[in-house]
Each structure stands twice: as C-alpha cells, then as structure tokens.
C-alpha cells in the first residue's frame, strides 16, 4: 500500500448492554492509504458502522474505548480533546450516512443546513457562503442548485438527498471521507450514479474513502482494497480483485458465493443468497475463532484459540487454514 493516511492500531472497544459487556473490537488494525478507496464489507451487525464511529469519534454513550490508536496524518485522534476533535470532524474527516432521509434535518432548508456547515468549517457567511454552496451542489451534479437550496430535504428524492449529503461532506476538502452504506437506501440505478459520482470527486480532489457496504460486489467495483469484517474482526484484507476473485477466508468465500449472477442483479432482489448460519450474539461470543460455528472447514483448534492474522496468497486472513502464512 501507499503511504497510509489513516492507521487504526490495536483498537479495543466494547458496549455496555443490558445483557452484559459486548466486546466488539479486540485489537483491530486497519490502514487507509492516501487517495485510496478501502471497502469494508460484512453482514449487518459485524461492526462496520461502529468502526466508522470509532474513527470519527461519534460513539454512542454506552460504548467504551478500551485502547489502541487512530492516527490520521500523524495525529492520534484518540488523544485529542473533544474540542480539538470537533475541528477534525468536518475538516479532516467527514461522513456520509446510510439513510439520507433521516440524516438530513427535516425542519431546515438545504440552504440553511449547508450554510451552517460552511460557516463552521470555512468561516464564511452570507452571499459568499451562498455562492460556495451553489458551486458544491453543481459539483455533485445537481444542476438546479437554486431550487434545491430552497427546498426542505423531504421535498427531494433519496438520490438527491444523498448528493446534498455528499456536497456538505466535501465542503472543506477533507482528507478522509467515510461513507457508511451510502447507497443502501436508494434504488439500483441511483446507486450506480452515486458511486460513480463519489469516484469522480475522489479523483478530482484526491481524498481517501472508507467505503462501508454489505455488498462485496459493490466493494469490488469501487475499491482499491477490501477489508472483510466479521463479528468485530477483520478476517481478510487485500487488493479488491484478489479478495473477491481468489478469496482466502471461508467467510469471504461465502460472501462471494452470494453475489447474484449478472442477470439476476437486474432484479432488485439483492438477498437471494446468504452465508448459512447467523452472526453470533456478541455478548456471548463463540470461543476461539468467532466464525467457527458457521465455518465449513472448522478444525478443533478453531474452537479453542483465536487464529492469527496470517499471510494468505496476496492477501491476509484471520484463519488457521493459513497458519504461519504457509498457504
């Protein structure tokens, strides 16, 4: 990989829940290179959003950070005060959320929401800010910028709302854009448009993207590298093509098998197939490898101790099949 922009090292994080402590991350490592798109893939509940919130430090109140570092451009974000972190958000890191219909404020016009973001991050107000906002809207391919500025979010389509979110996220040329399932709430054609838009903007502006998606097919199309997540662990990581076309970890192989055939992809039923079994209850996770109850290749050792993160072909995998990097 190129120079890392973001390095997550040995991240440990748990949630306090009614059913006890949920130890989600037990030493997670992740890098995002400068100008790179890293796809983070995994089923719902694997910890993708929590990873995003850990990086941008917007965790829910019952989350407990238990150690590790999140270094962005040489700065360890976990060491910053809340006030310093506020300057990082919106300027160095921003985020686009899954459901634009709830992520935009319903009682403010687009204009007012954009102007607040511009004021907070660039310190510009009034006419100057309005010109900036219009330019941003055009840049996300919303041609009738003036009309959109005067609209309330619910007057726009889901795709338009997501473009507005992206425009706001890119206000101050951030270094890292985290996109948490940015296209899950829109239909297939819009999905492609939004992904192409993100790709174009990234090429123009040079920011890095952490793209979270539950679809490994989407991740392959738009990412340089892919990290596959399962139950709070990164179980496989490598170049996007390699991870998909020659998957190493049994879980990744399962995800790839679920990619619908090209013809079926046009039908909007995306969940035709799933990996057999269910994500475990993480307040009481399986001992050893967290994937072992669902694994077709399970061995005795998998039930007892957690595997290491070994080299597996051109990728890395958290699996005893590659113990000592031999495969």
């Amino acid at each position, binding site marked *: 990989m190129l120079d890392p922009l973001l390095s997550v090292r040995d991240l440990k994080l748990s949630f306090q829940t009614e059913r006890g402590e949920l130890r989600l991350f037990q030493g997670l490592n992740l890098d995002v290179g400068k100008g790179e798109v890293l796809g983070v893939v995994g089923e719902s509940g694997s910890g993708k959003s929590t990873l995003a919130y850990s990086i941008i430090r917007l965790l829910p109140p019952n989350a407990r950070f238990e150690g590790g570092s999140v270094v962005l451009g040489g700065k360890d974000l976990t060491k910053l005060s809340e006030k310093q972190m506020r300057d990082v958000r*919106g300027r160095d890191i921003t985020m686009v*959320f899954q459901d634009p219909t709830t*992520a935009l404020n319903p009682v403010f016009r687009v204009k007012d929401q954009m102007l607040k973001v511009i004021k907070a991050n660039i310190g510009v107000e009034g006419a100057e800010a309005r010109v900036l906002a219009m330019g941003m809207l055009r840049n996300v391919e919303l041609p009738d910028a003036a009309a959109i500025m005067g609209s309330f979010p619910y007057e726009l389509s889901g795709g338009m709302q997501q473009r507005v979110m992206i425009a706001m996220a890119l206000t101050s040329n951030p270094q890292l854009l985290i996109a948490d399932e940015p296209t899950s709430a829109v239909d297939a054609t819009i999905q492609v448009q939004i992904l192409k838009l993100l790709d174009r903007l990234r090429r123009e502006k040079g920011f890095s993207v952490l793209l979270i998606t539950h679809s490994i097919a989407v991740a392959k199309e738009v990412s340089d590298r892919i990290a596959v997540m399962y139950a709070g662990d990164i179980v496989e990581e490598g170049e996007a093509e390699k991870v998909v076309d020659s998957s190493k970890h049994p879980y990744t192989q399962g995800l790839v098998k679920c990619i619908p055939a090209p013809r079926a992809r046009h039908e909007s039923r995306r969940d035709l197939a799933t990996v057999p079994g269910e994500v475990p209850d993480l307040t009481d996770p399986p001992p050893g490898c967290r994937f072992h109850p669902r694994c077709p290749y399970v061995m005795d050792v998998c039930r007892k101790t957690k595997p290491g993160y070994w080299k597996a072909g051109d990728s890395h995998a958290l699996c005893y099949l590659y113990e000592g990097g031999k495969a």
Partner: protein
Amino acid sequence: MNIGAYVIRRALLMVVVLVGTITVTFFLSHLVPSNPAIFFGGQNPTPQEIQRITQEYGFNTPLYNQFYIYLRDVLTGNLGMSLSFQLPVLALILEGLPNTLTLAAISTAIALLIGIPLGIEAARHAGKRVDSLLRVFSVGFVGLPQFWLGIILQLVFAIWWGILPIGSYGGTLTYLSFHPIKTITGSYLVDALLSGNMGGFAAIAESMILPVITLSLYPLGIIVRHTRASMLATLNQDYVRTARAYGIPEREINYGLAFRNALPPVLIYAGLIFAGSIIGVIYVEDVFNLIPGIGYLVIYGTGTGISSSGISGSVDTPLILGVAIVTAIIYALSNFAVDLVQIYYDRRIIK
C-alpha cells in the same frame, strides 16, 4: 394541501370548537333551577319587569328557540347586562381583559424564556448533577399550589423584608391620577410605556413582580420538563449525529439546530399555559390587589373574593358566563396561534 387551505381548515375547526363551548355553557346555565329572567332583570325586579324580559328574551318559548336567541346574541357580541355592575358584560370584560392578558403574557414569556434553556441544559446533561438539580426544582415548581405561593411571597418580600408592595392597586392608582396615562391598548402597563409615563410604568411593573413570580413558577416547571423530554428525543436523531460529523459546534447544534426540532411539542404546552394562566390571574389579581382585570369581575360576580367586600352575595350569572366564553375564546385563539407557529417551524405538518 397548501398552507392557505390548512390555515382555513384550522380556523374553521376553531369556530366549531367555540360554538360547541358556547352550547355547553348555555345548557349548563339552564341547569340552574330558576327563571333566567330574574337574573337578567337586575336586582329585585318587579313582576312586570320579569314579564317584559321573559317576552323580550323568549324565555317562555321552547329551549331550542332560546338557544337560537342566545347563540345569535353571543355571536353579535351581546353578552347581556351584569347584575352587580349594571353595565353591559362585554364592555366590562373588554375593559379588564388587556390587564389580565398582560399578566398572562408576561408570565408565559418568562416561563418560556427561562424554561426552554434550562430544559435544553437538562437534556444535554441528562443523568448528571445539573439534570437532577433541575428536576428537583421543576417538579417542585409544578407541585407548588399557587394560592399558597402567592401568600408566602407576600409574607417574605412584603411583610418580612418590605422590599416589594403587598398589593398596590391603591398606591398605583393614586400615582396614576396625578400622572395620567392615555388609554391606547387598555393595558395599564403598556399604555404607561407608550405614553412615556415612566414613573407610572415603574409603579405598575413593581406591583406585578410578585404576581408574575406566583404565576410563572408552575408553567416554568412544566416547560423545563417538556423541553428536556423533547430535546432528549431530538438529540438521539440521526441528523444531530450528521451535524456533529460535519463539525458543527456543540452550542450551535443545541441552540441553533436541535432546539428548533424540539420546539413544536413545547409550543403546544406554551399555548395551553398561556390560556390556562388566565385562571391563575383571576386569583392573583385578587390576592395582590392588582389593577383590575377580568379576575376582579369574577371575584365580584361570584362574591367569593378573599379581599372583596362584596357588593352582592348573589351570583352574577351573565357576567360569569361572559367571562367563561371569553376564556374559551382565548383558549381557542392561542391554540390557533400555536398551530400557525407550528407550520412555520415544520411544513410537514400540513402534508
């Protein structure tokens, strides 16, 4: 639906509610087991007068016909004659209402201006010490009986410490008779200000301090509780997280953004509090011997005042009914006003 159609619909609804209220008051007044002509005839009417009034008002006709006459009278502003004052009820009410509304508006405004920020702070620090402290005070305020509070405030500030007048109608009137104010709005406080009579303004304002405290603590507690609840729900919304992710400062998130989302349910209570405080004003005007508003009319009309010497011990039914109708109108209007503010804040309501 567009905004115009929505407003018209709400206005029509308001009229329907009002007619309903007037209907109920009419039939309630007919539960009184006596000849209404006697009430309308002033004190000690002669049989001839009773006869004349019975004819004139149609009291000998069927109830539905009487109801029709009553409704027609009310809708044309004829609320009858007051027994105790021998003056038209409407004129009496219109004279007193501005002073009553002034007191109600000031107490509601204070409850909102202090209660909303306190509620926001309570929500921001939910579960922390500030929140617990605010909870103790706001629940306490809601539990304080106003009649008790009024007397305690008089005891402490007027009798023990002597820093505020116990009840200053007399003193204020004496001052105003030497330094008269023009009648512009009918509210003494506002008129004193508008006619540049600062001495009069100060005297009236001073006499209102304890009444306003008495009236505003209860709504203050209510507003703090409801603002906290509404704000807590708002702070959990996705769009608040978005604002944080885009680096909006915390202060701006609370007071510039989330506050606007949390406001509509609080406004509903604000409307009810304003209208409901009319009832409190009736009591407070009497206890603090304030410039007469409609409270003073009720006290005389029912002969139940604490300080009223009582011109008559009997019930002045037309006057009381008139006050009831006017109070209902105030309720309906403040509800309507809240509706309008709600649409201003959130257009989705009309969808």
